[in-house]
């Protein structure tokens, strides 16, 4: 690395010049910060200001740029210098805007600014422009697992984008579940009649696409590697196992219907006249093949059909599926139309509790009513064989008739739900197998060689959905995207959309991998973790705790980083007890140096120092916005943004306390079921680690209040400063740290 | 030559010495002032009213209206049919509507019409409109304002629209829940409308006035009471059924509920006639069972 040259640039705009003694800060940068170049500017973010810095970078060889101005969240476009590592010192939002504009306050405000300059310079000296990951994978082929509507769509759309695709289907033919449908629910206007299931056309398009190579009767028996460099064994029944290299994977393994034999009360199993929706599709397809009307399994004509919605779904007792599968109302409507379109005199009744036909499904619902399908809001209690047919007993909720019945029914169709084919639940806790069949499944789909398990982690009920509302494709296995009903219950229309989106993410992943770039949420980040092998004690915390399963273990049981899978959260760095893991621009030292750089006054000064480690995604923006609202908070706090609370290493806390800080605050995102941590487990791990810190504090003879971990949200613009003041008051109450001046 | 000419369907209640004869009188005066010519449909018959359904059924009810419209098409060529009675307007409009959308029904209606002689054929050529539509749409509020010579200053009046002039067809551009045209008319004749009057479109239960008086009178009570609550001294309406019910049962309601109602209920046409300088007689004010003294005063002024 070329020798380091730090340039510190201090802005006088936005009132900084009036509120602070910039000259004084310049001296701090020079004397204490050891910045070789120090310049002031009345308006740093304008073109002249930026040009000034560019000139230094180009001509003076400045390769560490310290910007003493506004928040790292402001003027981002202006302060980009590709060849230099940039450190932003937030003198505006979190100094002058969060301190009172009074003469009394001037001194403390200046001290605050000076500390931040010291911290900035210290960080700059420890950081570097990340070099591109040498292990970046360049394979751009995309593997699609599953040849149903979702898989075929993903394959076709990726191919049309110009990418080669391998499509693996376990059955002997493409089509998946949809191929078994007689017709499908319409998804174009007028949303009035069942449509062709579309599988044949799609399969033909797939087979006709030169960029797609199809493996039938095949499964993925081993998957290793990382985005841009996956290695996959594809095993074909009665065929050889081939090993293929791909850049990204779309998992589209679909669903299977919930096992209706778990519903004896509805007569499934005991009467052949009771079928599930799949069973009805089969009857309809046979009939169509024979060119006849749909008949009962015993061949007799059908005069009356009853559809039972939410059969084994939306179950509050915990016996069956708790969720709603979304498509079933429209599917039953479609199936009722099979009969009505053949013969309007067939009675078809749909018994529902909430009819769920969102969007234009409402047109489909109306169309069914127009065709004479009867809708009854009720709860089915029992289906009994009576004479030659069936009797359906239900509670009519509108007429409030507990003992309502429909008799001499020829067919009862149970709308059972979707159960995802998501492979092994690598996080299954033996205790909870409540949500019906969903969890009970053990055959792996991807057979990942990952340390953390062979399949993609599941979110709930066995679905591999993302937990994020804004980021539906975020799986916890980088470069592997799931789509279709395996991700979330969905109908064909949504599955097509979902497949197309997943294909884009897969393409994006191979493009990013090829450039050594991180994907969401630190998209574009070129840094990657490296570790000092000799220092490692093989404690495995990093391999176990990485939220993205990026770290495996090699033969000698050392951690093996797969940079391509890394999301750059630093959780491994936070976990490491021997501190051997670091990123070029984010490490134990970049933060540690800042902590040490702060000038800690002696215990008689009555000027405590509080370290605030704030999650850069939510807590830090909240602090900025509090500043924008000119919300004042304690001048004794020194804030350091961290990538994720999960990256906080215990050493930072102990260092701070040892060097005389009076308190340490950690602000991270909500964890638990509705966690908001962008790195899934970071804030949870942090709070777990911090729950252990009390002993450490006791060993140091310190009060437990010297460290406080808090959950905050980005909207806590009022609350965050309040929490700070509260804590400052608390520190004031318990008094200064005994460790000052050692 | 009048500036506007219409084929006129007065309806049973508007006949001489019938329950809405006073309405008729005021409409004639009003139209005269506005230079509107009404050509009565010769030998028109009852519209069957809504209540006709039970005995009359579907086709006979429509045929009754088809007859009036067919005669109009034959005699008053090229003119819109105008009705002053809500029920007549609705009955005729409903028939036009149904026959326009049901070719089968149209054929059946004409089959029956043939029996009525005068080689009547219903074609559906003419629009069916309410007098209020004519005033608002063909003349417009500005025109209606011009002839005002005696603004009804200081009068606070509740505009009661009721049902059938309002639903299901209503006046174009007006809401079913809060029509504003009566308030506009009240304001035009110089009085103050009760804009927040919350019984504007409450049903007076007219259909049950005879058969289940206690039910309809409960409705009427709400309508009159609210007018008092908002400080109105008069209720005005475009519908003869509403007018009659809301006016004539006040005595019985007072007996039933111990109220002291004595609220005049007039027609928009009466207000306009007076505001246009017409006499109490021309305005049919002598037809009020509950007299409207303030209106009579104003009408008497300067005579």
């Amino acid at each position, binding site marked *: 690395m070329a020798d380091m040259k730090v340039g510190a640039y201090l802005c006088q705009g936005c009132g900084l010049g009036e509120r602070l003694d910039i000259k004084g800060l310049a001296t701090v940068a020079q004397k204490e910060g050891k910045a070789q170049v120090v310049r002031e500017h009345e308006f740093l973010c304008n073109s002249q200001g930026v040009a000034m810095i560019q000139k230094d970078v180009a001509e003076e060889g400045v390769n560490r740029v310290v910007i003493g101005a506004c928040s790292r969240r402001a003027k981002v476009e202006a302060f980009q210098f590709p060849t230099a590592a940039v450190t932003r010192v937030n003198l505006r939002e979190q100094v002058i805007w969060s301190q009172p504009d009074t003469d009394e306050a001037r001194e403390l405000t200046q001290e605050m600014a000076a500390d931040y300059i010291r911290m900035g310079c210290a960080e700059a000296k420890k950081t570097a422009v990340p070099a591109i990951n040498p292990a970046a994978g360049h394979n751009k082929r995309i593997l699609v697992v599953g040849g149903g509507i979702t898989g075929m769509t993903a394959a076709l759309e990726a191919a049309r984008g110009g990418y080669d695709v391998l499509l693996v289907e376990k059955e002997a033919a493409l089509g998946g579940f949809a191929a078994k449908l007689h017709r499908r629910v319409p998804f174009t206007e007028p949303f009035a009649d069942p449509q062709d299931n579309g599988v044949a056309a799609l399969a033909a398009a797939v087979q006709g696409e030169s960029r797609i190579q199809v493996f039938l009767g095949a499964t993925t028996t081993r998957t290793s590697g990382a985005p841009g460099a996956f290695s996959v064994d594809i095993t074909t029944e009665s065929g050889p196992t081939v090993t293929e290299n791909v850049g990204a994977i779309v998992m589209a393994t679909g669903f299977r219907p919930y096992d209706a034999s778990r519903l004896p009360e509805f007569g499934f199993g005991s009467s052949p006249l009771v079928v599930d929706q799949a069973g009805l599709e089969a009857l309809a397809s046979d009939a169509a093949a024979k060119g006849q009307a749909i008949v009962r399994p015993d061949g007799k004509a059908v005069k009356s059909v009853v559809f039972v919605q939410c059969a084994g779904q939306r179950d509050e007792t915990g016996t069956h599926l708790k969720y*709603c599968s979304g498509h079933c109302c429209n599917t039953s409507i479609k199936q009722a139309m099979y009969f009505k379109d053949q013969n309007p005199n067939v009675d078809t009744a749909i018994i529902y509790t909430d009819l769920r036909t969102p*969007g234009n499904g409402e047109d489909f619902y109306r169309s069914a009513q127009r065709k004479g399908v009867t809708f009854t809001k009720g709860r089915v209690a029992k289906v009994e064989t009576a004479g030659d047919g069936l009797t359906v007993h239900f509670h009519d909720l509108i007429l409030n008739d507990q003992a309502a019945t429909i008799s001499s029914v020829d067919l009862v169709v149970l709308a059972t739900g979707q159960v995802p084919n998501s492979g092994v639940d690598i996080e299954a806790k033996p205790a909870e197998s409540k949500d019906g069949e969903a969890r009970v499944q053990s055959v792996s789909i991807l057979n990942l060689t990952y340390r953390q398990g062979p399949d993609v982690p599941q979110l709930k009920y066995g679905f591999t959905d993302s937990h994020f509302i*804004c*980021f539906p494709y975020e799986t916890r296995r980088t470069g592997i995207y799931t789509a279709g009903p395996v991700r979330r219950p969905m109908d064909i229309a949504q599955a097509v959309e979902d497949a*197309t989106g997943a294909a884009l993410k897969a393409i994006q992943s191979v493009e990013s991998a090829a450039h050594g770039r991180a994907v969401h949420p630190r998209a574009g980040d070129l840094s990657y973790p490296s570790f000092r092998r000799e220092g490692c004690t093989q404690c495995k915390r990093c391999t176990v705790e990485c939220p993205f399963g990026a770290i495996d273990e090699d033969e000698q049981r050392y951690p093996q980083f797969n940079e391509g899978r890394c999301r750059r959260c630093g959780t491994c760095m936070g976990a490491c007890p021997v501190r051997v893991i670091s990123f070029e621009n984010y490490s134990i030292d970049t933060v540690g140096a800042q902590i040490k750089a702060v000038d800690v006054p002696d215990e008689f000064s009555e000027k405590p120092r509080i370290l605030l480690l704030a999650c850069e995604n939510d807590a830090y923006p909240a602090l900025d916005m509090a500043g924008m609202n000119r919300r004042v908070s304690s001048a004794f706090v020194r804030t350091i943004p961290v990538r994720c609370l999960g990256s906080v290493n215990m050493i930072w806390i102990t260092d701070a306390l040892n060097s005389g800080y009076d308190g340490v605050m950690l602000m991270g995102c909500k964890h638990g079921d509705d966690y908001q941590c*962008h790195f899934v487990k970071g804030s949870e791990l942090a709070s777990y680690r911090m729950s252990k810190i009390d002993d450490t504090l006791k060993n140091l003879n310190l009060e437990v209040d010297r460290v406080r971990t808090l959950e905050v*949200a980005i909207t806590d613009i009022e609350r965050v400063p309040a929490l700070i003041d509260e804590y400052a008051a608390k520190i004031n109450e318990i008094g200064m740290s005994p460790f000052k001046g050692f | 030559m009048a500036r506007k000419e219409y084929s006129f369907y007065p309806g049973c209640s508007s006949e001489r010495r019938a329950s809405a004869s006073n309405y008729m009188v005021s409409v004639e005066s009003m139209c005269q002032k506005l230079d509107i010519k009404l050509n009565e449909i010769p030998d028109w018959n009852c519209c069957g009213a809504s209540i006709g359904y039970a005995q009359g059924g579907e086709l006979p009810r429509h045929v009754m209206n088809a007859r009036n419209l067919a005669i109009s098409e034959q005699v008053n060529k090229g003119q819109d049919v105008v009705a002053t009675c809500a029920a007549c307007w609705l009955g005729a409009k409903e028939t036009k509507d149904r026959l326009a959308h049901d070719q089968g029904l149209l054929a059946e209606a004409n089959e029956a019409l043939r029996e009525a002689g005068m080689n009547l054929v219903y074609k559906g050529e003419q629009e069916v409109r309410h007098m209020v539509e004519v005033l608002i749409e063909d003349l417009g509020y500005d025109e209606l304002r011009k002839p005002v010579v005696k603004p009804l200053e200081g009068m606070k009046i509740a505009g009661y629209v009721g049902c059938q002039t309002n639903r299901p067809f209503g006046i174009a551009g007006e*809401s079913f*829940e809060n029509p504003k045209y009566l308030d506009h008319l009240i304001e035009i004749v110089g009085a103050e409308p009760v804009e927040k009057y919350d019984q504007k479109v409450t049903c007076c239960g007219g259909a049950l006035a005879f058969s289940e008086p206690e039910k309809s009178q409960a409705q009427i009570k709400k309508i009159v009471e609210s007018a008092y609550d908002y400080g109105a001294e008069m209720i005005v309406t475009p519908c003869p059924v509403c007018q009659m019910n809301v006016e004539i049962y006040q005595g019985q309601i007072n007996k039933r509920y111990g109220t002291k109602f004595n609220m005049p209920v007039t027609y928009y046409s009466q207000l306009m006639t007076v505001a246009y300088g017409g006499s109490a007689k021309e305005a049919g004010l002598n037809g009020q069972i509950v007299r409207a003294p303030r209106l009579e005063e104003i009408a008497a002024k300067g005579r």
Partner: protein
Amino acid sequence: MADVVATNETIVVVGGGISGMTAAVEAAETGKDVILLERSPSLGGRVNQLYRYFPKLCHPTCGMEINLRRLRGNPRIRVLTLAEVDRIQGKAGDYKVSVTIRPRYVNDNCTACGACAEAVTREIPNPFNYNLNKMKAVYLPSAMAYPQRYCIDPSLIGTPEAEKAKAACPHDAIDLGMQEQKLTLTAGAVVWATGWRPYDAAKIQPYGYDRFANVITSVEFERLADPRGPTQGRILRPSDGKEAKNIAFIQCAGSRDRNHLKHCSRICCMASLKQTHYVREKYGDEGQSTIYYIDIRAIDRFEDFYQKVKADPRVRFIKSKVANITEDKDTGDVLLHGVDTEGYHRYDARHDLCVLAVGMEPSADIRAVADVKVDASGFIQAASATDGIFGAGCATNALDVNRAVQSATASTLRAVQVVNRMAKVEGQ
């Protein structure tokens, strides 16, 4: 804007809400050049005006921060605000997009220091809060606003106040002479993500939104619950500022109704279920929510959320489309009239406040600028193979945020396919 570079490998994204931002960053992170056009002065769209998301009850600004960071740091994305599309001509791989850019009267020098706003006194209705309160006529649209630049309302131009603002700016960032600009962009593909608007509640006359102060819409309720909102997050009713503890939620306000929107707007059930949480959050057991519904449409995993809310003793469910609302003129309370159809029970229910779960309709009619097929509700229909203009998010259907993002991501690939084809053509 002469410096806007666009080629037929550029993707133009119209609309800077969650769908448009998603399309822009996803395309850029796939290596494509993007121009993002937004009609208002800043990005974020409707989600930015929501207090929380269902079902996690997390905050939209949280994801917004991530998206903004992805966008700010990405040199492939060019953002144009106050920009509206007048016309799109051409064919897939070769479009000319004509755009009008309204003046902001503030240039890139702006550092958002706020000196200009302090200098002026005139106030205008605050659209960010659905005009429930006022703001300075010189304003930063919201705390999260990107671009982080102030904006001067045209009504201020030509007044002494405008001059005051200009004089107050230390950075020479105010240009009162700024003019409307026209420009034409070249594009290979267009992603149309103009989103939705709430159905005009005044049209639902039986509910008296235009007559009764205490009948409000679900989007307005979001602002009342939001600490950034006009009441700093206190749920106070408009008529008298009294705490609204007994709140009615009316579902299908405009949706599933042949007199209004014939489609189901999909999100409203979940939105109201979510909003009952706001009532509990603020008032605990003193709060009372009542949901009047036809069918509760809590699809797939959302069912959990419905079950949770159902378990709350302070939330009642009544299966009924409310017939009409009247106002108690003495108290300002609203009275809901109707019939609970589960077993026929009549009610005349008194509430402090009534929230109409208003439906979604497309916020812009694309047919005015391009030849694109829409359905009867005005939503853009799926593109054919030859098209290069792709609908995304709520411009294509009534969608929740999650599905809007899904749709935007899918449309991004469709656009990428077109520009990649062009790249090949160029290559040869």
